[in-house]
């Protein structure tokens, strides 16, 4: 008989122990997040949608060197470069990216582009809401990734170029 009683007591102890943990955790702050009701928080180095950075003068950091595009394993970065002139100065270097597209239907968020960039122009931001019903909207243009100039920064010089330049 003694053994039966012993079983009951040890079971009750185990249950009490388990419930004790439950009770303790109930008192702790919650770890899960209330997305989408509450905006999620990220680790600082989370690799989300890219942000193209500006320097302290508000000029684009990207100098159109194509190294990110060369490093990208899925070839989803498309760049067209052009030369800065006295009248049109977009970046700090001689060259700037006239077109800079990333195709998010292919990007695997590996971070190689960020590693490759010699001017820290491309970084991973924390944007992650990229899902879409239309795959063509997954190609993002430079304007959609470029960070806003800091208040007080001198805006890039853009003077109107005389029409019909090329050809």
């Amino acid at each position, binding site marked *: 008989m003694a053994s039966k009683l012993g079983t009951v007591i040890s079971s009750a102890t185990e249950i009490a122990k388990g419930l004790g943990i439950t009770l303790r955790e109930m008192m702790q702050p919650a770890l899960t997040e209330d997305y989408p009701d509450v905006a999620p928080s990220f680790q600082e180095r989370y690799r989300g949608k890219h942000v193209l950075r500006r320097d302290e003068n508000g000029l684009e950091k990207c100098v159109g*060197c194509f190294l990110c595009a060369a490093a990208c394993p899925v070839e989803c970065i498309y760049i*067209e470069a052009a030369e800065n002139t006295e009248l049109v100065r977009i970046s700090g270097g001689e060259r700037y990216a006239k077109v800079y597209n990333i195709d998010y239907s292919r990007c695997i968020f590996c971070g190689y582009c960020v590693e490759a960039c010699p*001017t820290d122009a491309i970084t991973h931001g924390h944007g992650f809401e990229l899902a879409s019903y239309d795959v063509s909207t997954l190609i993002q243009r430079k304007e959609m990734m470029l960070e806003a100039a800091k208040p007080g920064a001198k805006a890039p010089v853009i003077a109107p170029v005389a029409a019909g330049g090329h*050809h």
Partner: protein
Amino acid sequence: MADVTFTVNGKSLQAPAGTLLIDACKRSGIEIPAFCYYEGLALQAACRMCLVEVEKAPKLLAGCTLPVAEGMVVHTESPAVVKARKTTLEFLLTNHPLDCPVCDKGGECELQDMVFRYGAGESRFTEIKHHVDEKQWSPVVYFDAPRCILCYRCVRICDEGLGVKALGVTNRGAYAEITPNKGDHLECDECGSCIDICPVGALTSGIYRYQTRPWEMEHVGTICTHCSNGCKTTLGVKNDQIIRGNNRDRSGINGEFLCVKGRYAFDFVGHAERLQSPLMRVDGKLVEVSWSKALAHVAQKFSEIKAAGGKFGVIGSEHTTNEENFYLQKFARQGLGTPHIDHRRSGDVPALLDAVSGKSGALATTADLYNAKAVLIIGSDLSQQHPFLAYQIRSDARHHQAKIFTVTEGPVREDKVAAKKVRAAAGEQLAAVMGLAEDLRAAGDLVVVFGDSIQGSAVGELVSFIDSLGVPAKYVCLVDYANSRGALDMGLAPHLGPGYHAAAQTGMSLSEMLADATLDALWVVGSNPLKSAKLASEKAFVVVQELFLTETAQRADVVLPAASAYEKSGTVTNVCGEAQRLRKAVSVMGAKADLDIFGLLARGMRLDLGQAAPDKVFEEIRTSVHGYNVPLPVIATGGAAMTAPVNGRLPAAAQPPAIQSARDSLFTSGSLGRYSKVLKTVLEAPGGLYKP
């Protein structure tokens, strides 16, 4: 010279005495890194990158100036050598800006490669670098002094290769700088050779600057469409746009040589005035119509005129491919049943072929110009009109001490290397040549290059005079454009069919067609005869295939937009008779290749002229045109195959044709040159009036 035996890194090697160590090692697969050493240019020994250890020598020696000697024992990878290379590179980098991300050379920079392979990982230099602003020397040449490693390659290629001498060095030591001949700008050929040969990004091209990076382009090796020299140009293409031209891999007959036209004047391709849609005359005005409408209209008109027994005149081009020319003459003679076919003539090739009939090897290749013991230039300013031939001759004089003779109207650049120069008016040049008999006989092994001043019977006289000297001789008859020679070989002449066979019926020449008031139809393909002449026949139905609305196209009833040589495949034959293959680099909106247009018209007229595809027509040329049975692998792999078009007497023309060279300069290229922004800006820049 006798071979000597020497040892490199424990390996016993042999090479002719006098060979430079760097060359001897390269042939045996041992690399000695170098910056300033450049095959074919004078020795400089400026960079010290090529230091090697030679036993019994007290110090490291420069491998680029060291001739191999019997018993020499060399180490190219010893600790002392490895250390010396690291130090040399560190030294070169002390004032180097390390602009690689924005430097046009990045990715194909010899300094990058060397540092990657031989350099130290870190720099000890912490001082402030000496900065000099970038300068623009001309519309095509920019110079960024801090990137320069003072290898003098640019100075030497311009002086020795081009004979221009536009670059020099000013100041000394750390402040030494490459400087152009006019202080702040260049007055030169604008050939871009200096930019191309620069191992680093110090010299950059105004056309290519900051456009893209080398690995982003597709590189298509094709043939320059401007002059008749047939240089291979490798076009860098991205998004169906040509971004640059060079021939850095030195494939092709021209090695790395290109003049301003082959390197930069591809920009006519994207000119705003390029025709993108067929035009048809409606109520006296040219209006845009669809291809099907334009082609149907031409086919219908041609069929009507043919059925009514009307008179057709056909004028071919000096830029279109052999396949197109062959197909066009077939179209004219078999399809339209007209003997009236011709093209603008710039040199009397038939007279030369007739004069050398029975001889073998009488036609010089471009390589022969580099190897001949003597070259006689008659009546042409080669550096202006035939830049690559001039380069070959200059190199021949420099490397082989060839004797050069110039018989020209005015001074020419070749005078500088000439053993004898003679000034004579066009009509007196043959007599002047005869006056050089003794010199020519003494020089031996001769290549004779002659322009349009020697034509008709004068060609025969020239050849028999040279024969009388008793020295082996080869000839080049100069013609103007990329396929002027091919147009003749393919039978675009009123009395000559393909391969210079007599045409079944002799037709009218170009000038006769234009002057014939009863002409019913004129079909002009890639030519601009109405630039300087008038069309006598008012009723003529005129069809023009062109890139632009030229003077001739403005008179047309139907204008069909044609593709340029950079937009199609086929073969062309250069001034020496070397056939080479065009590779399609880009596609453009609206235009069609001339061959495609012929094919569509033939179909529209229900003519059976065979399939109008380049490969098919080339096969027909190979089997039916004498001398074009060239080895396919050579052509297919981008090589040049010499054609020997005929060996026998040629039928005489009813009347000697009008032969006149357009005398283009370095910066012009017939109708095409007008649509090249680069050529125009170069002409308008200070120094544009530069007379070399």
